[in-house]
């Protein structure tokens, strides 16, 4: 579908606002800019309200009869419960510092994708119902009444936001606009107004433990294939364990890492690394998902899906948890898990069994990010690495939104990459680290029917990749997020087709010198390690 979109037309971005004021400009549902609604069977599975068949293009969305009351009561409850929500509703002075920081506004030009105005969609209802000035002055005070058009607008724009929090970096008040989007989505959830790309993975996760709906025997089939491939490339037979009680460490990663390309190469990297270390660890077929699409639904759903991590750690009796290359998983683990499902008193403060390093930062959650773990191994000289094996790759690094802005994990991935690759090039500084641009498909937007908005929202990131591709002949875009690995692949195919996408531990897999390995002539993808001419054909 991406191919059908004409690039020339897409880059003609019209920043001219509509003639009428924003309150009088109703939303227009155009294919490519909205996501299909959640199927009734998935909502039913999760006991979520108002399961039904409907379409955003229908006039009647079949909302519950008392929908207004539900929304207002839902807002009231959340304003009382979350002080942050109340503060964010009150303190914005509409300075506009965030306005041009959102990639969906930059690439799309719709003023309602300026974070300030996107938040205003909900603030206006807050003013009209919860503030004296708004109740009396109405529009003069920026207040408005709650109508079905407002609900349609919320649905459209809160699902054109990837909760990436780039705008928040620039807000002088520190308003976390992603939390406003989260509240908007939570209120919509009360009405049964959800998208299927989020709710089906959530339902799958509830049923099988992972977003893709992979059952244990299917998971084993996928691992067998990866293990066969590893043996083929390295000559080494790896025998990982699953659901093993008494292991020291439980390892959890996104299910896309063992289901889809290019994630599976990263997954093969984990398998090889842990084997080489002789790590006493186990996989789980129950806690078989690092990601948590509950984050894109409601706080209650975050908690429901996240619970299995600690539950499984407890059941297996491990000491601590190690987590793979996922993005939003780390927002949940780092900022919600401890209070939602903790404290995990039954776990120990994580210590690397290989280096003895105590991960002080994970003292509370008892869960360590794989980039921290591997960087520590390299720093302590515990790995034999041959970065020359990645010489055909000219690599740049995309800071995934959540690890970057929710965890501040900037140095570890770069440290690893620089130790396993000889050719590393940074993208321009206002597009990396805490200012990183989103892939355009996070927070449940990464579906094909959303392709136009994804290509628009991903354009700033693609531009920065194009820059290093032109300047340094970069041909690999590294990231540490499963959503990124899927969405950036499509984004690159569209905007910068010479650049392929990779996870960090895929690069580690190539460089890792293993005991008893055969001569490595192919990389972990099975492609020749060296090419006659360095260049794009990787």
């Amino acid at each position, binding site marked *: 579908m991406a191919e059908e979109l004409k690039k020339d037309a897409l880059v003609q971005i019209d920043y001219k606002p509509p003639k009428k004021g924003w309150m009088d400009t109703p939303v227009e549902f155009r294919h490519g800019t909205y996501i*299909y609604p959640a199927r009734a069977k998935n909502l039913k599975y999760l006991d979520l309200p108002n399961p039904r*068949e409907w*379409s955003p293009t229908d006039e009647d969305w079949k909302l519950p009869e008392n929908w207004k009351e539900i929304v207002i009561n839902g807002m009231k409850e959340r304003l009382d419960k979350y002080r942050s929500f109340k503060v964010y509703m009150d303190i914005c002075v509409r300075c506009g510092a965030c306005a041009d920081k959102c990639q969906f506004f930059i690439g799309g030009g719709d003023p309602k994708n300026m974070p300030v105005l996107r938040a205003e969609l909900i603030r206006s209802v807050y003013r009209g119902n919860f503030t004296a000035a708004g109740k009396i002055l109405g529009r003069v005070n920026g207040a408005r009444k709650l109508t079905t058009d407002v609900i349609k607008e919320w649905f459209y724009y809160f699902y054109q936001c990837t909760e990436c929090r780039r705008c928040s970096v620039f807000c002088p008040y520190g308003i976390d606009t992603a939390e406003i989007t989260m509240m908007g989505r939570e209120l919509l959830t009360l009405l049964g107004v959800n998208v*299927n*790309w989020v709710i*089906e*993975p959530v339902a*799958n996760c509830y049923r099988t433990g*992972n*977003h*893709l*709906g*992979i*059952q244990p*025997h*299917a998971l084993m*089939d*996928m691992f067998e*294939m990866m293990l066969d491939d590893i043996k083929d490339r390295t000559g080494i037979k790896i025998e990982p364990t699953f659901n093993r009680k008494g292991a020291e460490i439980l390892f959890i990663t*996104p*299910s*896309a890492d063992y*289901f*889809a*390309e290019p*994630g*599976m190469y990263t997954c093969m990297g984990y398998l090889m690394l842990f084997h080489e270390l002789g790590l006493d660890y186990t996989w789980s077929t129950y806690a078989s998902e690092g*990601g948590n*699409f509950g984050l894109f639904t409601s706080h209650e759903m975050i908690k429901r899906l996240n619970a299995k991590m600690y539950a499984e750690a407890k059941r297996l009796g491990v000491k601590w948890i190690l987590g793979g290359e996922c993005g939003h998983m780390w927002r949940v683990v780092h900022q919600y898990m401890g209070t939602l499902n903790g404290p995990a008193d039954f776990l120990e403060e994580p210590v690397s069994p290989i280096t003895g390093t105590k991960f002080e930062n994970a003292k509370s959650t008892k869960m360590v990010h794989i980039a921290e773990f591997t960087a520590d191994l390299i720093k302590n000289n515990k790995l034999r690495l041959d970065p020359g094996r990645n010489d055909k790759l000219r690599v740049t690094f995309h800071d995934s939104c959540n690890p970057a802005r929710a965890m501040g994990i900037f140095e570890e991935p770069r440290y690893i990459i620089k130790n396993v690759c000889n050719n590393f090039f940074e993208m321009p500084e206002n597009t990396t680290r805490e200012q990183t641009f989103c892939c355009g498909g996070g927070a449940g937007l*990464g*579906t*094909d*029917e959303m392709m136009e908005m994804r290509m628009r929202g991903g354009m700033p990131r693609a531009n920065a990749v194009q820059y290093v591709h032109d300047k340094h002949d970069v041909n690999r875009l590294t990231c540490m997020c*499963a*959503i990124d*690995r*899927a969405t950036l692949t499509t984004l690159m195919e569209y905007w910068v087709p010479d650049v392929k996408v990779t996870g960090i531990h895929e690069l580690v897999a190539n460089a890792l010198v293993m005991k008893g390995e055969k001569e490595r002539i192919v990389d972990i993808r099975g492609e020749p390690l060296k090419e006659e001419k360095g260049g794009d054909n990787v």
Partner: protein
Amino acid sequence: MAKVNLGGIEIEVDEDGFIVDPTLWSEKVAQALASTEDVPTMTEEHWKVVKYLRDYYQKYNIAPMIRKMCKDTQVDLKHMYELFPTGPAKGACKIAGLPKPTGCV
């Protein structure tokens, strides 16, 4: 969701034309779906891939990894795209009556 006539029976399909209930699949349905996915004729090779997908789905309740699908059917990715121009995930899986995978894919 909409109902369409595929191979003589009325079947419910989703927004992208995937059949909702995989148990209603038949070779006739596959033929009808093929014409919507730029596959004018189903050759023996097409059937080999489609039947492999059906078997895998019945066993594992999910579509196989694309890499696995190529490996097991001995059809490389390039040829897979020649057979199914809309791709293995969209085209081949749709013709085989499998649901779309959702998540970080």
